[in-house]
């Protein structure tokens, strides 16, 4: 009788479902016609539909009709023209670091994959050859998967750094700087390049300068997570300011880029880990070690999405069209922010709502407490995260009145 090796239930407890996916599942099952999904992090049009960027459709067809493409494995580090053009997007065409040939990249499976490879490298090589005890700091709050990625890469000490000030509904700069000061030297800090997830609250340029100062003094490692470039302000360069500032200050850093949101390529897993090293020799060593790590994770990355992005970024007319498409998405979000704030103010909703337009990107931390959130979900069929985070893309001209009224109700009737 064959043994039940795997089914030993001791080894396999049921994992708790991920909150955001559960939210979407509940939303789907809800039969109420007024239901609104302000949960999951993907772009929606004013019709509430996902949007294939026109430039993407164009390039997809080009690729499908191109008989000259070879179908072989990509190199382990990915499609070269994708890697270089993606890094240029993050650092700027004229980046001094690129001119100094000390910038390289690894094509990865989405932003997650880029974080993964970066984390695995740092655990092995960052500061000595065993960094399992090196502290990794993630913002409080942060994207819920950050913790899991670093933890699974072997880091045992993952800590929060102060970020969101619930009282003033903004950045807790003092707390942030304080945590930077008290962090052990050489700690790793995961920074959101722009459009902080989930709060939508970014440091100002001045505040970034202060942050960079402390990080330099204490030799803290900057690991940027850049999932919303272009999507936040509508302008690629503006959204990349923080990363570029750090580079100009001489930091060696990683930047995990995702093209899921700004290309709408959620399903092709297009990511890039940009590496800025001290010099070319170091860069080459880093990349050769990352190659080893990639080989034992997924061997080599998928070609479809990377090809699409590379063609778009490297063809002037297509690049211009893409920037336009990105601005379309960003503009719609800005419009919804402005309208939501106005409606809440017009209804006389208690509290301040400036943060709705001060925050940036896909998400907003409304400041609603868990009871108010529960009220919205249960009574009004408006689905949002227990943290009070809403996805602005879930708002449309058709449902914004209902949402504003419901928030007003929740705030006035539920304490």
């Amino acid at each position, binding site marked *: 009788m*064959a*043994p*039940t*090796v*795997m*089914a030993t*239930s*001791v*080894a*396999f*407890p*049921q*994992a708790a*479902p*991920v909150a955001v*996916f559960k939210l979407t599942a509940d939303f789907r099952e809800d039969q109420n016609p007024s239901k609104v999904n302000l949960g999951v992090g993907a772009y929606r049009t004013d019709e509430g*539909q996902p949007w*294939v960027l026109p430039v993407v459709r164009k390039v997809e*067809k080009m690729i*499908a009709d191109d008989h000259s493409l*070879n179908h*072989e*494995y*990509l*190199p*382990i580090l990915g499609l070269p023209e994708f890697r270089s053009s993606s890094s240029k997007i993050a650092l700027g065409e004229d980046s001094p670091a690129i001119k100094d040939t000390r910038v390289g990249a690894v094509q990865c*499976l989405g932003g*997650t*994959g880029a974080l993964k490879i970066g984390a*695995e490298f740092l655990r092995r*090589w960052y500061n000595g050859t065993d960094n399992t005890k090196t502290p990794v700091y993630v913002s409080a709050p942060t994207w819920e*998967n950050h913790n*899991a*990625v670093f*933890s*699974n*890469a072997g880091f045992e000490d993952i800590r929060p750094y102060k970020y969101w000030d619930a009282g003033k509904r903004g950045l807790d700069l003092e707390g942030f700087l304080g945590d930077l000061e008290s962090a052990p030297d050489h700690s790793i800090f995961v920074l959101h390049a722009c459009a902080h997830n989930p709060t939508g609250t970014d440091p100002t340029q001045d505040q970034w300068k202060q942050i960079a100062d402390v990080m330099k003094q204490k030799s803290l490692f900057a690991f940027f997570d850049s999932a919303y470039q272009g999507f936040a302000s509508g302008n690629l360069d503006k959204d990349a300011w923080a990363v570029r500032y750090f580079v100009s200050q001489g930091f*060696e850093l990683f930047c995990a880029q995702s093209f899921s949101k700004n290309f709408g*390529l*959620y*399903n*092709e*897993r297009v990511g890039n880990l940009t590496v800025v*090293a*001290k010099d070319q020799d170091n860069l080459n*060593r880093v990349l*050769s*070690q990352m*190659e*080893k790590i990639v*080989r*034992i*994770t*997924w*061997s*080599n990355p*998928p*070609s*479809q*999405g990377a090809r699409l992005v590379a063609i778009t970024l490297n063809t002037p007319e297509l690049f211009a069209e893409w920037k336009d498409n990105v601005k379309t998405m960003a503009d719609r979000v800005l419009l919804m922010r402005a309208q939501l704030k106005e409606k809440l103010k017009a209804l006389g909703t208690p509290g301040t709502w400036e943060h709705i337009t001060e925050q940036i990107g896909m998400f907003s931390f409304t400041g609603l407490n868990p009871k108010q959130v529960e009220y919205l979900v249960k009574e009004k069929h408006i689905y949002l995260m227990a943290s009070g985070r809403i996805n602005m893309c879930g708002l449309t001209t058709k449902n914004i009145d209902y949402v504003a009224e419901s928030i007003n109700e929740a705030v006035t009737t539920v304490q």
Partner: protein
Amino acid sequence: CYLYDEVSSLAPVNDLMHGHCCSLYNNILQQKNEYVGEHGHTTWLPPVRKIKQQISTDPTLTPKYPHILGIPEFTRRATQLALGKDSPAIVESRVFGIQTVGCTGAVRLGAELLRSFVAHVFISLSFLEDSLAGTFKAAGIEDVQYYRYWDAESNGVCVENMVLDLENAPEQCVVVLFAPGHRPTGAELSQEDWKRVAEVMKRQLFAFFLMSAQGLCSGSLEQDAWPVRHCVSLGLELLCAQSFSHNFGLYGERVGHLLCVLKQNLLAVQSQAEKLVQTLWSCPPMEGARVVATVLSNPAHLADCVKAIAERCMLIRERLRERLRLLGGPWQWDHIIKPGGLYCCFGLNTQQVDYLVQKKHIYLLPNGCLNVSAINSRNLDYVAESIHQALSSKL
């Protein structure tokens, strides 16, 4: 300060195994991992291009995050392909599948799933500087041991040694088994051999099959899957990593599948798999899996194509054997045509392999293993003569 002081310089990774552009021209034979056609290039299965064009113009396909475990239609069909539609495991709902990033992704994910209760992994002894051991170690299964597989004397598998080694395996051990298509030797076990191996596996060993080229070895999808199906019929729990790179020509798309056959606790294992996937790649890429799922809706398509590929490989083997036989010498060549599929082993020594690389510009895999698809009517004579010279010369 130099942040990565400790990073040691590395010789470049042996890219012969993770092939770059296939350039097959003049007298240079460059060995790679992919199946190449008579023209020297990789090709898609015939229906693939049309399907890709349909996908690119399909207005109903919307951009959104895929399910963490992949397209349900893909995993369902990949599972059926491996186990057969009427497999008891499927009928009894004891199986689930996960779409992964290629075969490597499937192995990595499987290893991560196993690490909480498995302490050792057994891999076939191979001459290849392979990443297989590294993948298990990275997943947290540190102790890698090897069982004997290729036997230079018989130019095939010595199943006696293999079974002996398995019988002496430690408890809590996962054993990596190669459904037909062993890399790099191509050497296979017979069905009788498999039955013996399966008996040993029953005693507390956990089977992790690698099935990277289903259909390409014997020409029959069912026959190549026989070892896996046999173990399932015995009631064994197992994992199986499948690749759709070779049999679809979809190398660049990274279409893989991890099949999990269990006795119970399916949902718990599935939920843990979801957690792990999120730390690796969040969710898998869609394009390739969509294509595969579409083709598999009518498996006869695939069956015909893999048969054609397998037949071509066999034809090349036969021609190669014939050339070598005609060139004379004391050597036996029957072992070239015994296994099917992409790989073939000549058992050359290091000097002979070096000679072929340096003097004849023929790049073989270590120990003189060869991807036979790279041989075609233009280079067959040259390859045969060169091998003959390598063996005859005093090296």
